[in-house]
């Protein structure tokens, strides 16, 4: 029986002994209280989220969805974000698809914001939640990819004149 210290990862082709990969739950603050985690997931602003989807994220967040699973009904969200129930339902579905919201069970109406990106509570609890839920990374879906490609194509189409830089751009000059 191999003892723990004798286990090694070996490349079967070359026979080289590889260093053991150290798994670490991604979070930025190791302190006693952490509010947010910035990981290598796709940033939210690049996902082509609609206004209702942003509002739904904010609604779940201010109802304690960062840190615990909360009950979210499309009707309740719709009245508070001033949208129709169908919009809220569609928004919830897309957020679940993007892995921004985690559904604790397929049939329940309880949702939790992905602890990889959203957290409010102690750092230790975040690490535990990451272990327990094993949250998938937030990845751009077809809509987000299409929007990004469209923006890139537009950028490439534009005549390559003198690019406005930080020193020459005056924000609000055209207002």
């Amino acid at each position, binding site marked *: 029986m191999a003892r723990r210290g004798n286990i090694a990862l070996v490349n079967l082709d070359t026979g080289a002994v590889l260093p053991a990969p150290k798994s670490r739950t991604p979070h930025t603050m190791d302190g006693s209280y952490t*509010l947010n985690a910035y990981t290598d997931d796709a940033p939210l602003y690049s996902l082509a989220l609609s*206004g209702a989807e942003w509002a739904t994220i904010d609604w779940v967040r201010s109802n304690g969805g960062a840190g615990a699973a909360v009950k979210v009904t499309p009707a309740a969200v719709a009245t508070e974000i*001033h949208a129709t129930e169908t919009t809220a339902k569609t928004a919830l579905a897309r957020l679940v698809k993007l892995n921004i919201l985690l559904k604790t069970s397929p049939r329940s109406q309880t949702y939790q914001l992905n602890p990889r990106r959203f957290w409010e509570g102690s750092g230790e609890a975040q690490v535990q939640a990451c272990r327990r839920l094993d949250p998938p990374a937030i990845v751009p879906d077809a809509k987000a990819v299409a929007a990004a490609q469209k923006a890139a194509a537009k950028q490439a189409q534009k005549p390559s004149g003198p690019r*406005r830089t930080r020193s020459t751009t005056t*924000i609000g000059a055209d207002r």
Partner: protein
Amino acid sequence: MSAATHDHRGGFDPDDLGMPPVYTLNLSAGQRSVLEWLVSRGAVFDTVTADVEEIAADCGTSVSTVYDSLARLEALHLADNPDPTRYRVNPRYFFAANPEIRRLVGEALDAPQITPDARATGPRKIGNTEARRRRTIKAVPDQQ
């Protein structure tokens, strides 16, 4: 968390830190993603340089949308523009985004102040032996 549901304890409303929930402001997707872009660059804690073309490329929108969004955020006082190209997100947004901290701050403003008592102003106790020695020495006050 709506205005109708929270209780008013002691005249102070812990939910009212001068900012309604973000989702009630009817921000468009462009405006909200520009806000998220600023926040992810640390604009809650410090002013950051906002390059409109960089924001437009990151958010997948046009430059004019970014200008409009920054203008609306400024009009809402969600973002402050102390000098051209530099932006700072209103710190009140931090409490809107983190309801637990918001509640704690509200309670702290409402809670009684901590006032030092006589022991707090006295000398710190060093050890049991030291304290006993001091007690025997100090036992008899000077009375004449």
